[in-house]
């Protein structure tokens, strides 16, 4: 059972991007608001595809949004 944790600063990025709502981000990234809430709460590790789409929405690189923490 892995205990790898992937942190993210999606919430911070949303506020920096004209206080984008979770629903707006979800619509742009092609996922549900529940998934964005789970991501921000650190309860879900996204697929690479979704991670790239989110990074693309904020015009940032993957590592600017997501951070891998050693177990």
């Amino acid at each position: 059972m892995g205990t790898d944790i992937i942190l993210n600063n999606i919430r911070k990025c949303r506020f920096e991007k004209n206080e984008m709502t979770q629903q707006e981000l979800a619509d742009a990234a092609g996922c549900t608001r529940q998934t964005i809430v789970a991501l921000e709460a650190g309860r879900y590790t996204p697929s690479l595809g979704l991670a790239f789409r989110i990074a693309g929405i904020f015009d940032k690189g993957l590592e600017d949004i997501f951070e891998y923490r050693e177990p």
Partner: protein
Amino acid sequence: MNIWFGVTMVSAFIVSALAAYLGVRALQVLKVRKAKLEEGGEIVNIPMAILQQRSLWNILSITIGVLIISWLFKGYAVSEFFANDKLRISITAVVAVTLMVNLFLMLPTSKKGRWSKMFDERDELVLSKASNFQIVGLLILSVIWTIGLTEYYWEAGSIPIDIPYLMFWSNFLMLFLSRSVGIVFGYWWLDHYGN
């Protein structure tokens, strides 16, 4: 003391001790995992996904269906199923309606049209794991049928011809019920321990 009794008791002790150890170890690992998750993100109530909500409704509808079937059977022997047209039609209708309700509630899994925005990779992950619950559910049901029928009809030496028909319906209901239980459990797991 009989040697086989001794061997059985020692084996039972070893198996129980191993199961208890694995259970405690799993709880410890989950506790650490949860603590790490809480370190990485804040504690929030994640809103229920549409699939999660519908699975709960589904569990309720199947439970009601099973209760109605049990009520219809009250006062009848199982062997009357084919002989009594009214009973057979009523039970078949309840099963059919329950399954139709299930199919309607599970429409979001089709990912078509308006559902496409309500169903994403997180839901797909939960759905893919839920099939494990279907296997376990069917296994448990087959054990219940086997033990129940063997015990009840042991003296008679054969079972009424109506039983396999009812087993078929019960398999269907269990298939849908266990998937919904698996979906609900999957979201609970994701919300508490991540993926």
